[in-house]
């Protein structure tokens, strides 16, 4: 964009989102890589379709993680500093399975997120919301034998970013997931149900399939709360690898 062009408005970005959604009603479940409403994607998306390949043996395996890699305390993001972080304390838990419903056991889950005010403890985050000295916002966990992960954290706040004028990311937690094999590797984001910013967000909306969008929403689950101490959300993850679809616009 020329330097002096007026920044895009939410209305113009939302109109782009709507027209792409209409054109991709039958798209696959994944995000479109060529998705101009997310301005940073314009020069970073491949233009060739992915080449289909039969995975070799090494690609049908993946790295192994274990007790040497992850400390059990890494899963409590509220306990990494002397004091309690500010915000709504919550448990985030769920089960990771493959496309056939088999648990993904003993695998690494990594998370990172903004604090309750919507600020990352990261030098590149210039959003003038307060940093929280008691919250770094990064955690690790290994899934148990039945594929369950569990983190204790605080609810992240939404934050502005510079995609367009007054652009706001819905509250989210970044998740990094390893499957049974290398082809199932996924990095994604978990969102909260009913967030009014979801329809406005070009990153969430890059998934044209509404069922695909739903799979990124956690569910409030009173059964996973810790009584009189934290709320709780459930988010299950399915890692299918080879069946992922990559539709070009």
């Amino acid at each position, binding site marked *: 964009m020329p330097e002096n062009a007026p920044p895009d408005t939410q209305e113009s970005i939302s109109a782009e989102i709507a027209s792409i959604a209409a054109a991709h009603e039958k798209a696959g479940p994944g995000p479109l890589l060529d998705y101009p409403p997310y301005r940073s994607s314009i020069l970073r998306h*491949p*233009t060739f379709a992915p080449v289909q390949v039969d995975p070799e*043996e090494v690609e049908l395996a*993946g790295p192994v993680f274990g007790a040497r890699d992850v400390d059990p305390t890494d899963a409590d993001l509220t306990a990494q500093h002397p004091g309690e972080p500010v915000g709504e304390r919550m448990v985030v838990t769920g089960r990771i399975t493959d496309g056939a419903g088999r648990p993904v056991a003993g695998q690494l889950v*990594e998370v*990172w997120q903004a604090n309750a005010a919507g600020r990352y403890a*990261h030098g590149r985050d210039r959003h003038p919301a307060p940093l929280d000295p008691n919250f770094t*916002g990064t955690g690790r966990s290994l899934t148990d034998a039945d594929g369950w992960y569990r983190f204790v954290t605080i609810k992240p706040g939404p934050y502005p970013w510079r995609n367009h004028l007054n652009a706001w990311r819905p509250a989210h937690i970044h998740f*990094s997931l390893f499957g049974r094999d290398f082809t199932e590797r996924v990095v994604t984001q978990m969102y909260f149900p009913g967030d009014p910013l979801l329809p406005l967000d070009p990153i969430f909306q890059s998934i044209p399939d509404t069922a695909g969008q739903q799979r990124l929403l956690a569910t409030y689950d009173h059964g996973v709360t810790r009584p009189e101490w934290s709320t709780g959300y459930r988010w299950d993850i399915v890692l299918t690898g080879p069946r*992922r679809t990559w539709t070009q616009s």
Partner: protein
Amino acid sequence: MTDPTPGTPGQTVGPFFGLSLPYAGGPELVPPGSAGAIRLHGQVLDGVGEPVPDALLELWQAGPDGAVVREPGSLNRDGWTFTGWGRAATDNAGHWSFSTLRPGPGRPGAAPFFALTVFARGLLDRLRTRIYLPESESSLAADPLLSALPAERRATLVATAEPDGYVFDVVLQGDRETVFLESRP
């Protein structure tokens, strides 16, 4: 779509993974300078050839004997165990670098390669590719993936040898765009 359950979609790694995903020792599958260590490095470039300073690469490979490695400890390296997996973020010049071992062929006569996963701000889902070693022309010519590609696209998957290892650029878009892969269902 034959899967009973569709997968969880990916989303961009965004700009703020730096405090969480990169870690000390991530790019060093073996200590630099140790016996058999090679340097595998390059740049990540965008559609106008500009370096991508906020990309993250993950390397997964067989050992020098071609066998799949099943060793934990990648996140907390002991300096002796080869885990076959590493992670490197790009620097301000879009440059990345691993210290590792040459992978062997997965089966007799097969072309050895590194498997690579690419994440970046601006990239809405991860990309997968392979970095083939340039030495064995006959195994490269017989490789099912490479032999099906036009010559100029095939060249994007083969590293260039250097005295201490290999160089390989990941080009996200454009004429020299790297071939990215999807598993055949």
